[in-house]
């Protein structure tokens, strides 16, 4: 048995809407994520998958249940920089250069200046932005900005990478390039990646396992192992097995949503 990077147990989340009615966003979600695994949380917009990720990141508190990251609770894990996070928008500080943006987590961790510069430069190289260290976010394209976001998430060398629909705002070609880069980075760093998306083919192409979430409230409808070969290249996207897997997950959704809606 491999060690678990993240253990989610009976997680539920409720909040009160404007009419003071309780609304359940997450219903009894339990999931173990293996160390080094690439796992996707897949579901339609507003189904609660981002809420789930934000609870893992200690940005929101669940109503009940628990999340443990490498044996720590979410707050301890956050304070000890167990995870990095990539957001839907690049979330860069516009007054800082690329280098200074990537250095930020190290700065907040009080890493000495020389060391954090070296480590930030290394991550900038990893995401293929060498030569743009002194550029400012506004001078970069959306795809490049998101690369900076990834470099920043990697900077403090966390064990776990949380990604909240990081490529949803990008065009198809940029997205495909970043998929390739992400897989390369993941392979070479051995990180655990939790990837939130509403895109079925993206989830299938990237993941070891895809968690299908149903909406209102979000439940784990199915957890599908993806058996496509690794390392995955673009060529996989043309194989029959890839199509089959995508259609299979699509069917799960059709089943779930015919019931629920």
């Amino acid at each position, binding site marked *: 048995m491999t060690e678990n990077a993240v253990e989610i147990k009976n997680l539920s989340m409720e909040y009160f809407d404007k009419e003071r009615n309780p609304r359940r966003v997450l219903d009894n979600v339990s999931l173990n994520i293996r160390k080094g695994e690439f796992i996707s949380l897949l579901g339609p917009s507003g189904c609660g998958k981002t809420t789930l990720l*934000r609870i893992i*990141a*200690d*940005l929101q508190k669940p109503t009940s249940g628990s999340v443990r990251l490498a044996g720590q609770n979410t707050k301890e894990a*956050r*304070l000890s*920089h167990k*995870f*990095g*996070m990539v*957001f*839907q*928008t690049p*979330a860069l*500080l*516009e*007054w800082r250069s690329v280098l200074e943006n990537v250095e*930020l*987590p190290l*700065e*907040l*961790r009080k890493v000495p200046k020389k060391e954090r510069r070296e480590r930030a430069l290394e991550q900038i190289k990893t995401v293929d932005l060498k030569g743009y260290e002194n550029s*400012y976010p*506004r001078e970069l394209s959306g795809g490049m900005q998101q690369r900076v976001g990834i470099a920043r998430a990697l900077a*403090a060398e966390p064990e776990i990478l949380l990604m909240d629909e990081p490529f949803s705002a990008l065009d198809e070609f940029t997205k495909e390039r970043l998929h390739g880069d992400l897989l390369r980075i993941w392979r070479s760093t051995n990180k655990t990646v939790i990837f939130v998306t509403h895109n079925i083919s993206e989830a299938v192409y990237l993941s070891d396992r895809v968690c299908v979430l149903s909406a209102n409230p979000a439940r784990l409808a199915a957890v599908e192992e993806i058996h496509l070969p690794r390392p995955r290249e673009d060529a996989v996207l043309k194989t029959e097995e890839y199509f089959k897997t995508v259609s299979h997950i699509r069917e799960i959704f059709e089943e779930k949503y015919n019931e629920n809606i």
Partner: protein
Amino acid sequence: MKTYKKLLSSVLWLAAALIIWEAAAYILRDVICDPLAAKKVPGLLEIGASFLQNSVELMRQAGVTMSYAAAGFALGASVGIILGLAMSISGLCEKMILPYLLASQMIPIIGLAPIILGLFKDIAVSRVVIAAYITFFPVSVNFLSGLKASEENLKSMMRVYAADKCRLYSKLLVPNALPYLFSGLKISAPMAVTAAVLVDTLSSKDGIGYVIVFTLYGGGTTGQFWPAVIIAALLGLLSFLIISAAEYILIPWKRQKEEVRK
């Protein structure tokens, strides 16, 4: 092309104003034959001549007013920044201060000035206090809304990387609030100058406002009135330009964003 048209429109407005002025001066002096014409609306040439003749004295008086305005502005801006920070850090602080801040702006400055003067019994101190009083409100309110204006994602990002409150402010909230702070400063700088001029007129013995009142009610050289009024107006404009220049230098990321948009 756009800047050319902008420039042309300013030139045309200025030319129109000068022509109307000169025409009014001519009508008053030579058509209606008002004996006080030279005092009410003197010709442009006379104003120009008086300007040159008294330029040293006018500049000295302008400098007096400007230095009081600057001192008051600096004091008011500091108080405004501290209040803005305090209200942003503590919700209780905001609930306690903000209503009174708004109420303080309901008191007309023209009524407040004599009270302040009576309180401090010193015209120099009063000038600084009134200028500060005018300044602090737009600064604190704008700064406060700037401190609240950071994107949720950026705040989440700072939290994920375990930023404490002090760093959250120094690395995200304050830099993000700078453009808002500067719009507050740009509003209040000319107001601080106006306030200083106003207090000049009360009972002081110097300052550009003193020159205006003194020459208006006779006693002084009549020709100095309009040049003094023009200089008082230019002082407000100058203060605005100084703050704008500081903004241009200190917030390069906003400046270049606008350039790209063009």
